[in-house]
């Protein structure tokens, strides 16, 4: 009788032990890298709290885990082409605002957006080309936000380098990035006068996440901008240093889509030709640019952007929030190319 009771107890303990390990022994070996879909390949975000979408209370539990976070495959010669493009690719921007993150080592990011609606008949566009180095830096060629002579958001080109400070990340402790962008002159012509515009920036940006609200990411920073306008005629050149705050947020709505908002001050070039009332005037001010939209990771290596934008110019303060006819819709995309992994597969270099 005692033997039977002991046997039954042993069986019960064994069953409970088996049930306590639902995913098998490998479940405990899951690395922090696998916890979030947006982690840097270099493993610089191990402490990042997992980003999970807000789930309705009555939503089935399995819906909250529709897409398990991808695991970064190793860059080896026998890796399949498809697997190289299925790794998590972190982005280094919101819409126009740079983030504290970099694209990662041996990675190339190509992105751009455009609007046909902002100025009838004119396609305004902007782009970024970034190459990551060592998980903490990236070289880039990009268009930075600026408002041109015609009042349009007409980004100016710049080349630069962005660094991510290697600070261990914890909930409530911001990640910090520094970017320097050397402005490339851009010409604008208004009323027959050509003006060369240059904007050189130093960016300080931070990213903040809290473990208690894993679906929310906040960004903020300051852009110290040196703007210069050189007219082609007798007018003297104008140069001004501007301190321009910028802020943004991301709300993770589901495993592939985020709602993103950003607002920033941007340098604005103003020119008034000579009239009977007075001489020509050249000035540099600032305007407010705001965007609200979404970023959809349609494939791991491709992100589609869509947003609506709002602009206030200090040159035309009469157009306020209610002037929705001057708002615009911008569409864009970002494509990631793991060139290091591709080179490894093709020639055996830059392998993990």
């Amino acid at each position, binding site marked *: 009788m005692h033997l039977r009771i002991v046997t039954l107890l042993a069986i019960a303990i064994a069953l409970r032990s088996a049930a306590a390990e639902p995913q098998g022994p490998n479940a405990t070996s899951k690395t922090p890298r696998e916890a979030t879909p947006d982690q840097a390949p270099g493993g610089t975000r191990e402490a990042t709290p997992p980003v999970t979408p807000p789930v*309705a209370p009555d939503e089935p539990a399995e819906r909250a885990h529709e897409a398990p976070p991808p695991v970064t495959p190793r860059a080896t010669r026998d890796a399949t082409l498809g697997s190289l493009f299925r790794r998590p690719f972190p982005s280094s921007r919101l819409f126009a605002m740079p983030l504290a993150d970099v694209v990662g080592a041996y990675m190339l990011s190509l992105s751009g957006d455009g609007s046909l609606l902002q100025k009838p008949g004119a396609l305004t566009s902007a782009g970024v080309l970034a190459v990551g180095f060592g998980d903490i830096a990236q070289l880039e060629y990009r268009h930075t936000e600026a408002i041109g002579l015609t009042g349009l958001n007409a980004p100016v080109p710049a080349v630069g380098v962005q660094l991510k400070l290697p600070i261990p990340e914890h909930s409530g402790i911001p990640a910090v990035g520094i970017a320097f962008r050397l402005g490339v002159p851009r010409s604008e012509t208004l009323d027959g006068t050509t003006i060369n515009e240059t904007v050189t920036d130093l960016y300080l940006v931070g990213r903040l996440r809290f473990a208690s609200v894993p679906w929310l990411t906040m960004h903020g920073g300051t852009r110290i901008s040196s703007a210069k306008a050189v007219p082609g005629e007798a007018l003297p050149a104008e140069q001004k240093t501007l301190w321009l705050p910028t802020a943004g947020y991301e709300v993770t*709505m589901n495993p*592939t*889509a985020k709602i993103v908002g950003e607002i920033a001050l941007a340098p604005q070039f103003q020119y008034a030709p000579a009239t009977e009332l007075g001489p020509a005037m050249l000035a540099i001010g600032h305007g407010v640019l705001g965007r609200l*939209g979404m970023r959809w990771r349609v494939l791991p290596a491709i992100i*589609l952007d869509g947003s609506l934008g709002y602009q206030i110019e200090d040159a035309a303060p009469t157009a306020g929030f209610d*002037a929705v006819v001057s708002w615009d819709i911008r569409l864009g995309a970002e494509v990631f190319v793991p060139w290091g992994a591709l080179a490894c597969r093709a020639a055996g270099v830059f392998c993990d």
Partner: protein
Amino acid sequence: MKQMNGVILATVLGTTAIARAQPAPADPSPPGNSTGSAGDSAGNPAPTGSPAQPAGSTASDPGPLLGGQTDAPADPYAPKSHRREVDRKPINFPEVLTTPTGWLLPAGVLYSNNALDTGGGVTSDNRVGLGDVAEFGIATTDQVRERTTSQDKPEQIQPYVTASFRLGIDENRLFPGEPGVTLGFRKSFERNHHGQKTRIAELTLVASKHLGDRVALHAGGALWDASLQSNATVPGGQDPPQEITLHGHGLKNQVRVFGGFEARPLAKSEILIDLGWAPEFCYQCDTDKIRLRPELSWGVRYEVASFLHIESGVRVPDIGNSNLLDAQIFGQVTFTSFALKSAVESLK
């Protein structure tokens, strides 16, 4: 005889016991498929456009010998589909008849609505769902009207091309009973017509809520804007004509309330009613060069197939003047497609 009854009873009980010991057959319909029920897994009622049940559920059945259900022999060399099964949730349409709803197209779903009316209007509205949180569309509309003087009869300006972007949250997403909410923006490309440059724009915030399985309500507010500028050439030295805008006439001329109602008395038929607004330009009016007209529409939507709906009804372009002679009968065809979503899923 008693022995025979005992044998029969024992046989029946034994067979029943064996049958109960077998595992339950798997549900052939994929998760999230709404067929066979009136709503999705979240409890939302299926309003319109319930997708068809995917065919081929028996193709993967290995047969009764291997625990399957049918006798159809499985071909071990049959080509395997590389496409992932797409979660074909029922589509809540982004428009009632002329007004937007608080619902968005699912990610990767294509939508095309093409209409004709007795006023000579031809319109097309094409959209794509983005990430289950937004949608983008390009459309032509015949709702914008023009007239030279206040005594003239308004005429449609068409084609009037607009682009739209809407962002929102699904119904029951944040909490049970939460209505679907979208923030939408629609803006036209500049239109040159009769020597005038015009543009319109509309910012909307709308909420939509299902009340039971067969009724839905929509309510929202719109902030309209429009601009009008003459193309007339002016003598040298003079300023070009001033641009007139709706926002230049105050916020009360821009803000309007709109709404709609949907009822589904039959499984595939819906009755739709909505009240919206549309801008009208009057080129030589002294005042009210740009004004908004109330527009009432009612009609029926019928689901021909999961990808095809036809709609027909009546639209009164200006219910303010009570002139039914201006009323238009319209017919429109709406196509929806999961092809892009399927392609994206297969690439994943």
